[in-house]
Structures are given as structure tokens and as C-alpha cells.
């Protein structure tokens, strides 16, 4: 509750709306105590007095009645009507919704049928029909507006209740012998209350507008009593000659509704932080780069096709900065396959996505380092240059093809689009080429599949499409970000075999991101192990697997079950990966390491190279 109030107070707009609303409500409550003139005292001699005239701050209307006084009384009435309608609708709707959602079955069916039918009407029409039947009048308008809004509450609350009704605590209550009525009141109601409050705050503004609207049409409050709507309605006749009579109540309605809307949005965001600011940001076309000058080009040896040099990528969340990639250097030669291995959260995927500036931004920022393709720096390149490289020279294969293919386009169209993004080609030619690509990735019956949507394919087939898409423009480098993780084992093997074949046939370079040493052993001649945003070990795959130098590598290899290795203990690594915003000084793995000594936490530990191998450890398992 306090957290809720804090969040609400921090939202400046909502606070302003709430303050304005509180002020209006207070004044409306205090109306009988204020020294106002009689709102219904007519004085034809003083009709249509302008605002700021003697004795009438806001002027008078067509009967010479004081507008300020009428405004105060009208606001009071409008607020009372709006709040009453909202409360009635909320109570009735919530009861219906909870009963329907909790009891289910036929009760649910009947109630929701009725609700659906009511929702089939344009809402004012329904209100008009009710007013027509009951006759114009304040109370009848209120009933109509409340009735029209009941279905909205019923439907919302029912949805939440259905989800709750199947939960354990409800079963527990049932087993303890509570009756349905009691469960609904004691267990369900408190849990749906936030939803009711959200629905209430977001619809009260509407209901005030709707009641004012009915009064405006002459169907609500009847003279001489006037709410804001009927004040506007009466003023309409003299709109052109005496606009102030209309403007005064109109502006008031606007202020009331706006303050309620602002406040309501704030309440919603505070009760449902998921929707709050920051959670729903959209990524920019390319990761933001905010770095000092890129490090100078060191002539690499042997010359690398793709060179990542001292890359630093951070997530900036408000005041917190999480260094996801902290000075990673890695090179990839032509035709080479390199594995980048690590647990989830180690920064391996962020490293991979940083290459073509695809890290979601905000919050991602590339804060240092360089990425060079054939010696050309790409991080600082203009967006159009970068875009021309994406998919043409460096292509990606992502993890979950269910999520990474567009669900609404046929796969043939998605392939053709990838081709035509970089090669001027007609639609027909692109389709022929797409079919070729599907054949290249051994898609079964490609002629039939090409017009399928992603959801019609199996997981393995989808990933074949993902690979075909990456191959569309004969890239030099493929960055495969856990391409087989979402697939089952036999399909995994097929996909790996496919990548291996493509590499041999086309001289592709592959950067393979994975957490699975088995996969690396099959495909990559070199590997690098990442932990907490840094590379801790690097070397030829066979050598590292045979004699890991870093304790972390050793533990990680020990986690992999080997078929045919007989009974062997699978060792989990004790502890959890460290939080990136609270990294220990020195070796980040030290707290989980069985070989840790005091000096491990003393200071920065460099990545020491010896021949083809490198390790970031003071007390390695083996000396390479």
C-alpha cells in the first residue's frame, strides 16, 4: 500500500490531477457553506451579464441567474451523479463478474450472454432506450448510465476471477469447508479489488461525461435544477450571442474529466507497475552508442574478418548501470567457427547482438570499444551503412524461431523480403530464389512449405527458415545466437549438421553463441568462455575441453552429461552468477570457486595469453 502511494506520488501528472480533483471535490462538498447567491434566483433585468461584472463574478445566464453559484451547484450535482453511477456500475458489475467467473458453468454462460448482448449496443443508444422507457429525469439518467457500464465491469472482473478460481488458495478454502459465498467475499474479492479500482478510476470520467451528455440533451436533470450538462444545454440557444454562458460549464466539465483521467491513469500505473513508465519502451533501430573514441586499430594476427575489440555494452536503467559486456575482445577468421560459451546472463548474447547494434536500446548502450569488419569500424558507422551490412555481410540466426519469425507473413514472403532488402530483384525472381534457399537448408517439400505461415511449421522447420533467411544474401559472417536451444535433441543434431555443411561449402564464418559444450565440440575449432561480462578463457576447442585452465570452465564442462560415459556425477556449480551491478572486485567467479584464495579478490585480473590459449585466473587448474 505504501509502495502504491509512493509510486502514485512520484507520477507528477497523476499528482496534479489528483490535487485538482481533490480541490474540486472539496469545493463541491463545501457548496452549502459558501456565501453563494441562490442558484435559482432569476433576475431578468440582469440577464446575460458578462463575466467579472458587478456582483456576478462569472456573469449571469438567460434568466439572470448567477453563473458562479449555478456552476458550483451544477458541479456538485454532476460529481454526485457521476460517482454514484460509477459506484453502482462497479458494485453490480463486480458482483456479476465474480459470480459468473467463480461459479462458471451455466450461471457463467447465462450472465455472460446477457453481458455480450448489452455490449452489442452502441452505449448511448442503450442509455437512450432506458431513458425512453423510464422517462427523462435525473435519477433515470443515472440508472441508464450505470446500467450501460455494468457489462464493462462484469466482463473485466469475470476474466480475473476465472484465473483466480483455479488457484491453490481457493481450493484450500474450499477444502476447509468454506461456502461459496464466503470464498467469494473473503478470498476472491480482495484479490480482484485492484482490478475493480483500476476499472473504476478509468471509467468514472466517462460516466460523468455520459450523465452530463444526457442532461445536455434534456433527458437528465430537469429545470430549475441543473447539472453541468443541462447548463450547457440551456446555454446552447444563446451560444452565438452570449458564449460565456456555455463556456463556463463546458470548461468545468473538461477540468473535472481531465483531472479524473490523469489521476486514474496514475492509479492504474501505480497498481499495475508492469505498464508503468520504463517497462514498456520500444527499442530504437540501432543500439545507442555513447563511447570515447574507439581504440586504435591493432593489426591483428592472423588478419581477422570480424574483430570485436574491447567491447563494452551496458544497460542503463535509471541511475543503475549494468555492465553486461565488460571489455570483450574476440576475433573471427574467414571460414572459422568460434564458440562463445557461458551461462545465461554472462553477456554472450549481448556481445553477439552488439556487433550489428541490435541490442535493445533503451536500455542498452554501447559504451566503449569497436567492432571491425575487414578492418572497417562498424559501431560508429552511419545508420544507412550499418543497415547495408545487416543481413548482407553479417547475418543472424536467433534462438527461438517461433518468436523471431513474423507470425503474420508467409515464410516465402519473409525470405523474399530479406533477399530484396539488399538485391534489386522482382517478386517472381525473389520467390524462385527463396525456394532455392529452402532447398539449400533441406526443407522437406519446399514447394508446399513456401506459402505456409510460421505457426504451421514444426520447430526444426522454422529454424531452417531462420537459417535460410540468414543465407539469403550470401553473408560472410553468421552469428548464431543459441540456434538449437529451443529444439529437441534429434532436430538439434540436424540443424548443427546443416550449419557445418554450409560452412564447409560456402566458407562461412560462424560465431556460435551457446551454453552447451557438446554443441561447441561438434562445430567450432575455437571457443571463448564468458562469465559476468568478461572472457575468462579462450583457446582451441579440443585443448580447452581436454584441459580447462579456468576453474569456471572446468565446472561448466563437468555440468555436461556425456552419453556413454557411464555413471558419472553431474556437478552443479554452487551459488548463482553474480549481480552485474554488484560485482566483487577482482575475479567475479571467486565467491563460487573452490580454488579461490585471498588475492583473487584483490584487484583486476588480466587475461593472460600463452600461445593460442588465454585464461583470466591467478590460480588456474592447469598452466597452459
Amino acid at each position, binding site marked *: 500500500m505504501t509502495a502504491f502511494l509512493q509510486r502514485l506520488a512520484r507520477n507528477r501528472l497523476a499528482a496534479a490531477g489528483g490535487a485538482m480533483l481533490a480541490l474540486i471535490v472539496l469545493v463541491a462538498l463545501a457548496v452549502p457553506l459558501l456565501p453563494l447567491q441562490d442558484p435559482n434566483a432569476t433576475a431578468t433585468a440582469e440577464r446575460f451579464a458578462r463575466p467579472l461584472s458587478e456582483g456576478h463574478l462569472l456573469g449571469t445566464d438567460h434568466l439572470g441567474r448567477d453563473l458562479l453559484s449555478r456552476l458550483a451547484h451544477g458541479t456538485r450535482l454532476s460529481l454526485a451523479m457521476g460517482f454514484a453511477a460509477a459506484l453502482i456500475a462497479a458494485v453490480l458489475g463486480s458482483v456479476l463478474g465474480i459470480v459468473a467467473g467463480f461459479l462458471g458453468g451455466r450461471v457463467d454462460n447465462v450472465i455472460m450472454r446477457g453481458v455480450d*448482448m448489452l455490449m452489442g449496443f*452502441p*452505449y448511448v*443508444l442503450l442509455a437512450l432506450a432506458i431513458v*425512453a422507457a423510464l422517462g427523462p429525469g435525473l435519477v433515470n439518467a443515472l440508472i441508464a448510465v450505470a446500467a450501460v457500464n455494468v457489462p464493462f465491469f462484469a466482463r473485466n472482473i469475470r476474466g480475473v476471477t476465472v484465473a483466480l478460481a483455479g488457484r491453490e488458495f481457493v481450493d484450500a478454502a474450499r477444502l476447509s469447508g468454506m461456502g461459496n459465498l464466503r470464498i467469494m467475499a473473503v478470498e476472491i474479492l480482495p484479490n480482484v479489488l485492484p482490478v475493480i479500482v483500476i476499472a473504476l478510476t478509468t471509467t468514472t470520467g466517462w460516466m460523468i461525461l455520459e450523465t452530463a451528455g444526457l442532461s445536455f440533451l434534456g433527458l437528465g436533470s430537469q429545470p430549475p435544477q441543473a447539472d453541468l450538462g443541462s447548463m450547457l444545454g440551456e446555454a446552447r440557444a444563446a451560444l452565438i450571442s452570449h458564449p460565456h454562458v456555455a463556456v463556463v460549464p463546458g470548461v468545468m466539465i473538461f477540468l473535472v474529466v481531465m483531472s479524473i483521467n490523469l489521476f486514474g491513469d496514475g492509479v492504474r500505473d501505480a497498481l499495475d507497475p508492469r505498464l508503468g513508465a520504463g517497462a514498456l519502451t520500444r527499442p530504437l533501430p540501432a543500439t545507442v552508442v555513447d563511447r570515447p573514441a574507439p581504440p586504435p586499430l591493432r593489426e591483428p594476427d592472423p588478419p581477422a574478418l570480424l574483430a570485436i575489440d574491447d567491447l563494452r555494452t551496458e544497460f542503463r536503467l535509471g541511475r543503475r548501470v549494468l555492465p553486461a559486456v565488460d571489455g570483450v575482445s574476440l576475433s573471427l577468421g574467414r571460414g572459422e567457427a568460434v564458440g562463445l560459451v557461458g551461462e545465461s546472463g554472462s553477456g554472450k548474447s549481448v556481445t553477439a547482438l552488439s556487433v550489428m547494434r541490435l541490442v535493445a536500446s533503451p536500455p542498452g548502450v554501447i559504451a566503449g570499444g569497436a567492432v571491425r569488419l575487414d578492418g572497417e569500424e562498424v559501431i560508429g558507422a552511419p545508420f544507412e551503412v550499418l543497415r547495408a551490412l*545487416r543481413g548482407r555481410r553479417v547475418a543472424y540466426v536467433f534462438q527461438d524461431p517461433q*518468436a523471431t519469425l513474423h507470425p503474420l507473413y508467409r515464410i516465402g514472403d519473409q525470405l523474399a523480403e530479406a533477399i530484396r532488402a539488399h538485391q534489386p530483384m522482382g517478386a517472381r525472381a525473389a520467390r524462385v530464389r527463396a525456394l532455392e534457399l529452402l532447398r539449400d537448408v533441406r526443407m522437406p517439400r519446399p514447394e508446399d512449405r513456401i506459402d505456409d505461415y510460421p505457426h504451421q511449421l514444426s520447430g526444426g522447420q522454422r529454424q531452417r527458415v531462420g537459417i535460410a533467411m540468414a543465407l539469403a544474401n550470401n553473408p560472410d559472417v553468421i552469428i548464431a545466437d543459441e540456434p538449437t536451444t529451443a529444439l529437441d535433441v534429434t532436430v538439434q543434431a540436424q540443424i548443427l549438421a546443416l550449419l557445418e555443411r554450409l560452412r564447409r561449402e560456402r566458407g562461412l564464418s560462424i560465431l556460435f553463441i551457446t551454453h552447451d559444450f557438446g554443441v561447441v565440440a561438434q562445430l567450432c575449432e575455437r571457443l571463448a568462455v564468458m562469465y559476468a561480462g568478461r572472457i575468462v578463457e579462450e583457446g582451441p576447442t579440443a585443448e580447452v575441453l581436454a584441459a580447462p585452465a579456468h576453474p569456471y570452465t572446468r565446472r561448466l564442462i563437468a555440468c555436461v552429461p556425456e552419453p556413454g560415459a557411464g555413471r558419472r556425477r553431474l556437478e552443479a556449480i554452487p551459488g548463482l552468477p553474480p549481480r552485474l551491478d554488484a560485482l566483487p572486485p577482482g575475479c567475479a567467479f571467486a565467491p563460487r570457486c573452490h580454488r579461490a584464495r585471498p588475492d583473487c579478490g584483490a584487484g583486476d585480473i588480466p587475461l593472460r595469453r600463452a600461445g593460442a590459449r588465454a585464461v583470466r585466473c591467478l590460480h588456474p587448474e592447469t598452466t597452459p
Partner: protein
Amino acid sequence: MLLGITVIVFLIMSLIPGDPATAILGAYATPENVEKLNRDLGLDRPMVERYFIWLGNMLQGDFGRSFSLNRPVIDEVAERFSATLVLAGTSFVLCALFGIAAGVVSAVRQYGLADRLITFAVLIGISVPSFFLGMIMILFFAVRLRWFPVSGMYAIYGGGDLADLLHHLVMPAVALAAVAAGVVARLSRSAMLEVLRQDYIRTARAKGLRERRVIFGHALRSAMVSIIPVLGLQAGFVLSGAVYIETVFQWPGVGRMLVDAILKRDLMLVQGGVVFVAAAYVLFNIAVDVAQALLDPRIKT
């Protein structure tokens, strides 16, 4: 669904207090006469039977007779509804186009100047009563600037062509669209924000597509899946708002007819008008569902 609407209207109308026969014959009618008239009008039969008789008549195009206008309800409603359709249809198109465009711009430029301006405009749009907005527009554009006529559908003298209609249509259509556009813009913005975070948008960017294609070809297409149902709701909203706007601008539509009919207690006319408009709305929503199914191949399977 259509049947449901007739049931609800019938139920609401049977809530009317009082006895129609007494109302027709006056307070001094003899009980025998009241009974006779009730029998003649079919009011002595059970409610379910009366409902089906009423339904059958409507299916044959007989909506009854309006006593205040002394003409068949169906003629009056059809005539008025076409005027409403012109107004509401135009508004609907306006609110959809501007709402979606504003939402997309707002999402793509999140937290930028355009986003702030649009969010502010939307807040005003959804808070101002459409009838008040209409009145302000009359004061400003019709009285002060004299750009558009104050009210009506056609000029009284010498009007009647399409240009005249459009000239009269601009202000009411815009006033009516403003609120709905605000709602659509709000929803489009959040739908776009949601979609732009999806993995397949990253895939589209990784392919090297132009940003324009990413936004309109990939993101908006997906966002439409959640925008279209709301457009269906907004159609009901625009039809509802038309009641106010028609009163403000003296537009000879079905909304104004309903209000007049209620004030004159011409219940046959109210009943017929409500059923007619609600039926049109239901049909429109069926069309929306079809559009939805065409857009999203996952719905079919």
C-alpha cells in the same frame, strides 16, 4: 446477436409504466373498452407471444407507426439513418486514420517532442465533451472565422450538391472524431510499443530492412491485430457521439430523431430507431471480425 438486441429492446420497452390502452382512451375509459382495446392490440397475450409478433412484423419491414410524425417508423428511420451514416462514417474514417497515425508516430518517437505533443492532445481530446467541443468549434470557425456554416446538412437556399454537403460536414465530423481519435491513438501507441519489443522486429532489423518497412510493414501490421477490435468499439462510440453532435449541429440524423422522440414520448419511433441502429452496429462488428480473420492467419486454424 441480432436477436439478443431485439430481446433487450423489447424487455426495456416493457418496463414502461402504465397501460397503453388507458393512455390511448384517456382516464375516463370504461373497463370494458380498455379490455376490448387491449384485445385488439394483442396486449392480453403472453409476453413471449407478443415478442414474436413484434419480431415477425419487423422482419417484414413493419416497425410500426410514429404518432408524432404520422408516418411509418421505417421510412423516417431509414431517411434519418442515411444522414447519420454520412456523419458517423466520415468521423469513423477520420478517427481511424488520425488515431492510428498519431499512435504510430507517438510510439516511434517515444518520449520525443512529437510523442509529448500527441499525448497532450490525446489527453485533451478524451477529456473534452464532444458537444462542448462542437460548440467551441461553432464559435470559432463558424462565427468568428466564417469558414463553415453554423449548422445543418445543406444550405437552405441553393444548396444540395456534394460540395455543399462536405462544407456542412467538416465541423461535425471533426468534432465527433476528436474523442474517438484520442482513444484510438492511445491504444495504437501502446499496441505499437508492445509489438516493437517483439523478437521478430529485431529479426526484421537484422535482415537490414529499411526502418520505414520495419515500422509499417512489420510492426503496424501486427499492431493492427489489436487495433482493429478497438476500431469496432469506436464505431459504436462514434454512433453514440453522433447523438450529441447531431443536436449541436442540427444535423438531421437518427440521434436527434431519437432525442426528439423521447421528449415527445413517441415510443414506437424510439424502439424502431434503436433496433435499427443497433442492428447496423452489429453488422459492422461482424465485418470487423471478418477483417480481423483476414489479417491474422492464426485465427483460422
